[in-house]
């Protein structure tokens, strides 16, 4: 017999151990970036300030990093600094890395969210169709479309897309987030250019932004579609072969109701995890896409920091994306638990 009290106690205990797991993962993440930034390079100071830095700058950074202390003390300092939101200073922009990251993150978030929406809206129905017509021609076509998305280098597709749709056909605008003369016209409220321009009634800018966003968003959408449709297919195949779908059909449910109302509804639970994971994958894909499309996001920031030998910025960006990744996993975990009655 479980009393309500013991059940809530167990729930509390489960929550605590789950939070601990997340905390340990985040700590491990910080340890990894610490390792990459401080232990791996032969001279971490040079990897931050570059080889041509004057002696005074070198000494200042040496002390700032606490390189005169033992490694464990350095790590402790690193963690406390991160918890206070101090990721160090970017030597390329001369601003705190956190300020830069917060500046650039909304653009990445906007682009990858739209990409994800495209991926889900197209990918899930494609996966369902693929499973429904298993081993028939729609299945083959959709599988090939997915496999191509898996195999194509996304940065190359971006270049080809620019060549065809921007240069040759002129259907979309070129690299960047807006045309040059629109940049800075809209006040920054949310950081999302679409929302900001719409809220402020600047429709000309809104449509310009869409024209700039179309190509990179479609490419990211295709990238996530490949994964989402493939996973949807495999989950749906399991569901369609199960007995409850057969029962529903025997009871006279329409094909649509059996497939969408019964099978897809049960498939939705694992699909939540798939979608969360592909959101994380988009953050990664955006690094390459943003460099191609000069998109003012995190990926482009990391890319340009690499060439300024600005290690603080690179690691800060990596850490941020990692944390977002962990939280996405967490979110999918929570959703899984609330959606699936068996896991409650």
């Amino acid at each position, binding site marked *: 017999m479980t009393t309500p009290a013991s059940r809530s106690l167990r729930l509390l205990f489960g929550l605590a151990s789950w939070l601990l*797991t997340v905390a*340990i*993962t985040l700590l*491990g*993440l910080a*340890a*990894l*970036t610490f390792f*990459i*930034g401080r232990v*791996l*390079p032969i001279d971490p100071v040079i*990897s931050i300030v570059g080889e041509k830095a004057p002696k005074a700058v070198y000494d200042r950074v040496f002390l700032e990093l606490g390189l005169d202390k033992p490694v464990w003390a350095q790590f402790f300092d690193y963690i406390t600094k991160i918890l206070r939101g101090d990721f160090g200073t970017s030597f390329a922009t001369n601003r705190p890395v956190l300020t830069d990251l917060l500046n650039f993150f909304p653009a990445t978030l906007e682009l990858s969210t739209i990409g994800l929406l495209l991926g889900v809206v197209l990918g899930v129905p494609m996966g369902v169709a693929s499973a429904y017509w298993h081993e028939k021609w729609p299945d083959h076509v959709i599988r090939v479309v997915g*496999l*191509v998305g*898996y*195999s*194509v*280098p996304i*940065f*190359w*597709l971006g*270049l*080809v897309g*620019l*060549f065809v749709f921007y*240069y040759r056909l002129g259907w979309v605008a070129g690299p960047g987030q807006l045309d040059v003369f629109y940049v800075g016209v809209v006040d920054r409220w949310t950081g999302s250019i679409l929302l900001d321009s719409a809220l402020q009634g600047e429709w000309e800018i809104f449509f310009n932004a869409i024209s700039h966003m179309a190509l990179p968003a479609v490419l990211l959408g295709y990238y996530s579609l490949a994964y989402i449709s493939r996973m949807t297919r495999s989950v749906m195949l399991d569901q369609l*072969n199960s007995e409850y779908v057969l029962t529903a059909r025997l009871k006279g449910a329409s094909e649509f109701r059996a497939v969408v109302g019964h099978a897809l509804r049960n498939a939705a639970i694992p699909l939540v995890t798939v979608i969360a994971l592909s959101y*994380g*994958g988009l*953050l*990664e894909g955006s*690094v*390459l896409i943003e*460099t*191609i499309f000069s998109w003012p996001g995190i990926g482009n920031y*990391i*890319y340009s920091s*690499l*060439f300024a030998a600005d*290690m603080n910025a*690179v*690691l800060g*960006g*990596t850490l941020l*994306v*990692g944390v977002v*990744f*962990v939280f996405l*996993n967490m979110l999918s975990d929570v959703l899984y638990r609330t959606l699936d009655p068996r896991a409650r």
Partner: protein
Amino acid sequence: MTLAADPIADPKRALRAARWAEFRSFARRFLRNPLGVVGLVIVIALLLCAALAPILATHDPYLPTLTDRLAAPGAEYWFGADELGRDIYSRIIYGSRLTLLIVALVIVTSAPVGLVIGAVAGNYGGWIDRIFMRITDVFLAIPKLLLALAFVAALGPGIVNAALAITLTAWPPYARLARAEALVVRNSDYVNAIRLAGASDFHIIVFHIMPMCLSSVIVRMTFDMAGIILTAAGLGFIGLGAQPPLPEWGAMISTGRKFIFDQWWVATVPGFAIFIVSLGFNLLGDAMRDLLDPHLRQRR
């Protein structure tokens, strides 16, 4: 003709015959999957390109001919010439060696590392398992390309460092796989029997757990190769992989980027090479999974 059956050679012969029959049935089922065959053909073509590069290439991949800068595709340069007048076709042929080199380096390092970590974690359980799996989770928590990028940024660019960085991102799935397999095998009767017979943990891990992981590892490897090629090309494109003048495909796209509007062939042609090769590995991986994955086999 001998009267008594040879007690040592006969079982061996039977075993060999059985393995041969199994291989033949495997090959027959494989050939029934046309996409898998296409994948196999692509992979074999890649191997041939790498092996026969000096014969297949029409020009020296490194020798600049400045008068033929950015020449269009034609009879002399089949896929055109790059910004230093080097033949793109020959560079792509030689580039297949670099691609194979990176893939081989990553596979031979990441799969064994992941296998050992996973098998040890699964075999011992308890704290060792928890610690190892937390470490695996941390590595899985960062997107692969980004982690590889940070590693190469710290280590310095280059083809070996790029391979090393990709390895560091590629081992966790193998560890997961091996652990799952080890957890099943660990408590099975035959493992308990050899444990009672005095076999060491080392013996059990190496001779009983790892072989069980092999078929899933092979499937995973084939899929991974496509991913490795794409990550390596991405690193090359960013400028952290193979350095000039090496004809690495990703780096070739990167130099061609400047000319994408007027001399489109410089950037687009190497991309086709990357695409075709990784498609080949994906097709092959799909076919292998259909054949080798025990879970799928049960369902049919």
